[in-house]
């Protein structure tokens, strides 16, 4: 691997989305990510389409952690890792004999990050969670919706991505700290606390003012602005988002849609007035948009200096979006890995002038890199690796 994180060794025990998303980023950036999997743990293997999405740029090591030798090898690897990362419930790695206290004795610089659902300890510490659970408990489901509907919530496992991004941030910060102090550390990242942090201003509003925020649809949470919503357009379920953030933009908007008289209309003359007459305003705008193609509305308004954009589906992103096409955002892996053909993917959104991310490798078959990893990390001889294979450690 090349890249800015070249030389960083990551021992990766993660599964599902939050953890694998974090280590996918580390792999993209050039770290040597060794993903520990097992044919005895189905679901966390390349035959899952979901796995295929989140496990590029990692090498695959198969280890049967139910065996003594499997756990010994895991411990030896952990002692040579810069980063050990997992997203099990608390206690799993301890039971495998590779808890932080054990690993850090032989590897004082290790950055050991645990991404459990609820964090280590506390009355909910053993609760099980997926992103939808965290969205619920953190207030994100309650706050994402339209007035009177506290049951809609976010339509994808957003908090898993957020947990992954926060994990990468703190790992990189810990690398900088280790550079000057020589010290590694344990990081306890609760996916729940990541979710709660995302509602930070609502919590401050509650503690400072006693105000319990409610879902507000598409209204802006922090500024008095209008229009700020999604509007129906021509076609089946096609919509455009229009957001007028300043008075200059309001004048531009009215001119662009041929309703200059609205700037002098007392119902719409100021942002405050527009918010007070929101339903009327939104109906007027929808009357205009529904006769038009969403991309035409976007172009007309953007050319007039008004932030507007089509509500794009995944298919639009992949097939229609000229900006993502221009920037080469969607690509195919340079190899086939565990599959019969290259894997399509979206590249990392960071573009480095000196350490560009150019190589993207497909997820690997279970244990495809066993010999290479054990040779490089543990200096194991070929015949010893073969022996481990024979006695069933590497599966």
């Amino acid at each position, binding site marked *: 691997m090349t890249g*800015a994180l070249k030389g960083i060794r990551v021992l990766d025990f993660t599964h599902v989305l939050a953890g694998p998303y974090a280590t996918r980023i580390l792999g993209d950036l050039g770290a040597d990510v060794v993903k520990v999997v097992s044919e005895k743990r189905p679901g966390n293997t390349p035959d899952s*389409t979901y796995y295929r*999405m989140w496990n590029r740029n990692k090498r695959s090591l198969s280890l049967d952690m139910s065996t003594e030798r499997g756990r010994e090898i895991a411990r030896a690897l952990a002692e040579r890792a810069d980063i050990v990362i997992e997203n099990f419930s608390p206690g799993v790695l301890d039971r495998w004999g590779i808890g932080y206290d054990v690993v850090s004795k032989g590897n004082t610089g290790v950055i050991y990050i645990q991404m459990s659902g609820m964090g280590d300890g*506390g009355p*909910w510490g*053993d*609760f*099980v969670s997926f992103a*939808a659970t965290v*969205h*619920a408990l953190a207030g994100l*489901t309650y*706050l994402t919706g339209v007035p009177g509907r506290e*049951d*809609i*919530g976010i339509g*994808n*496992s957003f908090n898993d*991505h*957020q947990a992954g991004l*926060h*994990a990468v*941030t*703190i790992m*990189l910060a*810990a690398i*900088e*700290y280790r550079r000057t102090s020589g010290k590694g*550390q344990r990081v*306890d*990242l*609760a996916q729940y*606390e990541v979710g709660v*942090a*995302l509602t*930070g201003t609502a*919590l401050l509003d509650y*503690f400072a003012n006693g105000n319990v925020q409610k879902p507000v*649809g598409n209204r802006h949470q*922090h*500024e008095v602005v209008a229009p700020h*919503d*999604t*509007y129906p357009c021509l076609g089946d379920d096609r*919509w455009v*988002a229009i957001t007028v953030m300043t008075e200059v933009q309001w004048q531009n908007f009215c001119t662009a849609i041929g309703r200059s008289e609205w700037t002098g209309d007392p119902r719409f003359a100021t942002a405050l007035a527009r918010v007070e007459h929101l339903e009327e305003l939104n109906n007027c705008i929808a009357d205009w948009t529904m006769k038009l193609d969403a991309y035409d509305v976007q172009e007309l308004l953007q050319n007039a200096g008004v*932030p*507007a*954009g*089509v*509500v794009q589906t*995944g298919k639009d*992103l992949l097939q229609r979006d*000229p900006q*993502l096409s221009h920037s080469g955002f969607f690509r195919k892996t340079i190899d086939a890995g565990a599959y019969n053909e290259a894997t399509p993917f*979206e590249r990392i*959104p960071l573009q*480095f*002038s000196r*350490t560009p991310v150019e190589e993207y490798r497909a997820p690997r078959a279970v244990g495809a890199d066993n010999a290479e990893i054990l040779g490089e990390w543990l200096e194991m001889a070929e015949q010893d690796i073969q022996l481990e294979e024979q006695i069933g450690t590497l599966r």
Partner: protein
Amino acid sequence: MESSRTEGILQTIRVLDLADERAIYGSKLIADLGADVIRVEPPDGDRLRLRGPFASDNDGEEHSLYYAYYGSNRRSVTIDLGNARERETLRQLALSSDVVIDTGTLASADIDVFDLLEAKPELVIVLVTSFGSSGPWAEYLTSDLVAGALGGFVATTGDVDTQPLKAYGELNFTTTGLYAAIGSLTALRHARETGEGQVVELAVHEAVPSCLEHVLMWGWFHNDLPMAKDDVLARRGSLHWSDMYEVMDASDGSIMITTTPDPMKQLAWLVEMGVEQDLLDPKYGDPEQHRMMVMRMMEVLRDWVAQQNVEDLFFEAQERHFPYGWILSPDRVAQSPQLEARDWWMNYQLGAHIVRGPGAPYLLEEKPIRKESSVSEVGADTREVLEKIGWVER
């Protein structure tokens, strides 16, 4: 104000924060980890200080809670970009930093990033744009809602009977901020190892579709997904793409119910309660009919959940290791026994007034994250900072 120079694991770095709402979450995370972050504001103050919600302190002064959360723990320096000398001061500030996070201020000040790199080769500059520095939409304007719409997030959120929706707050900008922090610290690591700085570009429009879970999977692999009917999955309220998670109404509140990770275990619970309806019909036992069984189980669960007390059901489910989630409003979140037990909250200073607020999204063993957060007055640190870089009078 001393708080921006308290200890933390990033106390060894200095960051020039030129981020607007699109990336401010990134500089916030770095500031909260103890970096010396200098935030540049116009002489009349950062417009983000005018963002709500607000709170009055005991003296009747209004404080932005948005800014208390996103703009805290920095030093504040004012720069008038209309003044050539002050633009030069900005350049000097950039050159005295390890990392610059910028959403367009450098260009407004006619400062070329590659000139900066030439003057200081180890400098890291993260440039955040809405759509990219070139391309057909490069000049387009964005907001969090527009970013979420064009980036594919908004199409996933909302129900069949509502318009497409944004999430709470500005979560597309949160994602962008996180990538800005990751870009900063990644390039910093490379600079520490090699002495080589660089420019890192990041577009909001690319950050958003990096966090869409199933959406791109649907586009590429729908033929491999038994639940996919075609290449797009329309928004459908709380029902997850897997069909196995949905918010249901209990007798006195709502709760996210899921049959994961093991529908058979869920079935056993329903049988134990005697509310399984027809789920034991042999037609559901056929592995080929597993999806039909799960869909039916969600219906049966809906009937059963409607009769339950939400709190009791949630704790009973978790006791049995089912990842149900009680839908909690912010006041309930504020009373979470889990957050209390983990000593999660921190104090936010609003003038002379202190309020409780959100803690850090990770707990650290070494150099724990500060428990007090405060906002500098506009320009409070201008003189001190400029003196330090040898730029005393303007």
